[in-house]
């Protein structure tokens, strides 16, 4: 029940993008085509879960016992940066096809605040390891869902007549606002 709530909460009413504003940059930048959105979503899901587990372990096993909580930000961002590098290298070696599909998105992920955001949130919410993993998966699915939905709408918008001033990001933001409105409906 608890895990169920965490999982679906992260997908819907606490959607990372539409409700928490985490990962807006890739949300606006990569959501022009459904295909790229799916790729980005997969890459984020992968890194997010891995990073959550690693930072959770670091916090629990290293920072907290040593009273170094104030180094959280610096340690987490370094871990995420190193992890992204490592994942990219590993992917290139093991599965060039996967790397070809996801590789271009990986560098973008380091500065994706959704990754650092979920790592910090997991600690703030005092989640245990299982809850951390479930929460990360839910958040990643929520992120992908929002990304793909917006991409689908933007593909349609492109062939429609949008006033010049609204073209591009402004109309995307307004669309996202309406999506957010729909997602906030999950609360009740």
């Amino acid at each position, binding site marked *: 029940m*608890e895990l169920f709530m965490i999982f679906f909460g992260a997908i819907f009413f606490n959607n990372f993008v539409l409700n928490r504003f985490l990962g807006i940059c890739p949300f606006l930048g990569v959501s022009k085509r459904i295909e790229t959105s799916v790729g980005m979503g997969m890459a984020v899901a992968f890194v997010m879960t891995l990073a959550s587990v690693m930072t959770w372990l670091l916090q629990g096993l290293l920072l907290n016992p040593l009273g170094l909580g104030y*180094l959280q930000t*610096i340690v987490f961002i370094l871990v995420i940066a190193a992890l992204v590098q490592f994942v990219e290298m590993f992917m290139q070696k093991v599965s060039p096809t996967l790397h070809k599909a996801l590789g271009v998105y990986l560098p973008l992920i380091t500065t994706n605040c959704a990754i650092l955001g979920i790592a910090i949130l997991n600690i703030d919410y005092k989640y245990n390891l299982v809850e951390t993993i479930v929460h990360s998966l839910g958040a990643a699915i929520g992120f992908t869902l929002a990304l793909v939905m917006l991409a689908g709408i933007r593909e349609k918008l492109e062939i429609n007549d949008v006033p010049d001033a609204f073209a591009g990001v402004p109309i995307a933001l307004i669309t996202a606002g309406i999506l957010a409105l729909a997602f906030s409906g999950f*609360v*009740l």
Partner: protein
Amino acid sequence: MNSSLKMVVVLGLIAFISAGLLAGVNYWTAPIIEENAQARLNATFSRVIDADEFVEPEEETEFFLRIAKKGGAVVGYVVRLTGQGYSSAGIDILVGLNTEAEVQGVYIFSHSETPGLGDRITDPAWLSQFKGKGIDDPIASGTDVDAISGATSSSTAVIGSVRRAVQFVGGYLGLIEETEIDFAQIPDGTYTGTGRGFGGDVTVEVTFANGELTKVVIVSHNETAGVSDPAIEAIPKAMVAEQKIQVDTVSGATMTSEAIIAAVKDALKEFGGAGPAEPIDIGSLLPGTYTGSAKGLKDDITVEVTVSGGRITKIVVLSHDDTPEYAEPAFAFMIDQIIETQDLEEVDFYSGATFSSEGLLNAVKNALRSQVKLDISGLPDGVYVGEGEGFHGITRVSFRMVSGELKDLEVLEHNDTPEYANKAFATLIPAITEAQSLEVDLASGATFSSQGLLDAIMDAIKKGPVLDVSQVPDGVYSGTGEGLFGGLQVEVTVSGGKITDIVVVDHQDTPEYASLAIDGITKAILDTQSLDVDVVSGATGTSRGLLEAIEAALKSAVQ
């Protein structure tokens, strides 16, 4: 320089310097952050009680507790505890209480109940209903506080938490005597009681045999199936196994557990455990020996108390564990004092051995509250009549006491099957007369009739001797009683073992009603030659006063 070495060195230096810088900033800000956090917490505490300082108690407590002070003086307490609502995360609640353990304020610290439904527990108007509730209030939904409809489980959790906070602070302040009931003093039998649970009243039946709790049965309840099952299963077993009432509650079914405990306490409330026990009326005690024990300095002190003629005549310490050179003079002092003053309430303790003194006094009190080992020879002379419950109905007996000897025991009336009952009476009556004791074997095959007979004798002993007019010497005796509006005086004439005349000399009651009573009662007594007559309806006050006066007159004749 080698370029890769340079990379490592530079990166390492940057990391080292930044870690050092952060450690410094942290060292500087940490105490300020801590102090701020404390101030914010205090500000939150101030929402539930008007105070400016919140001190951690020195001892470890069951719940989070802060002592609230204002201007240095203790004004109350803040309790923080978690209630189990709808969400598994629990409801974090602050309760502020004054020094009488009365609720001053309730604040929901944090909760994860459903928005729009469960979160209505934060409504200040609803929370204000707890204000002023104290240890004497039930604090149960539907009695003195209301749950929120549509958010029953969330609001009931809050109500339960407030009740626990009140009980906890009440216990902390010593306002609630958490004395465990002494099972040894509970007569054998089955007792019924109720406690308030999650869904309503929980009714239990508690059975005692030989001073031991043998069975706890939940007769009826309205608790949620599944959730409450572990408590219904485990609590009665734990009580019997541990021989105590205050057993650990079952987590996840706390309310049901507490309801069962409360119900058992309710069933046994006449044996103490709740409120101070009634003072003992030594004059009405049955003759015989009583045993009881209470805690002394180290362990239990056990005493045997002998009562005869409505007085404590002897106290013997059977066992104790206190240091003899201190305890024994204390015991001697206490025993002498009790026997001399016949008073168990206003007692001086032997200085230097207060615990032994108090232990002895409590042991005596416990003894006198327990069942008597009857000494028939101590009963005053006279005719005794009593009733007991036989197999099919009431059994009435009578007997006489002559110089400490029980004589002429006979069954006046019974409703049991003659075949069995007569056999029982034929065995028991000689046995009792022979042994001069009620501790005889019951007649096999007619235990109910036997028990009825013994109960009737016990009842007769408790009632004391009835007046036997035939024993009263001839003469005119006067006595007084209390009528409806004042004193009432009679003169009773006895002649040849019979009451021949009753004259009311003086009374203060309304004449037309009083005369009804006087005529009726006088005629009835003269007819039956017994004081066991019905009062005259419409003039009960005068009737009782008159009977009291006649009895007093006849008693003066016997003495």
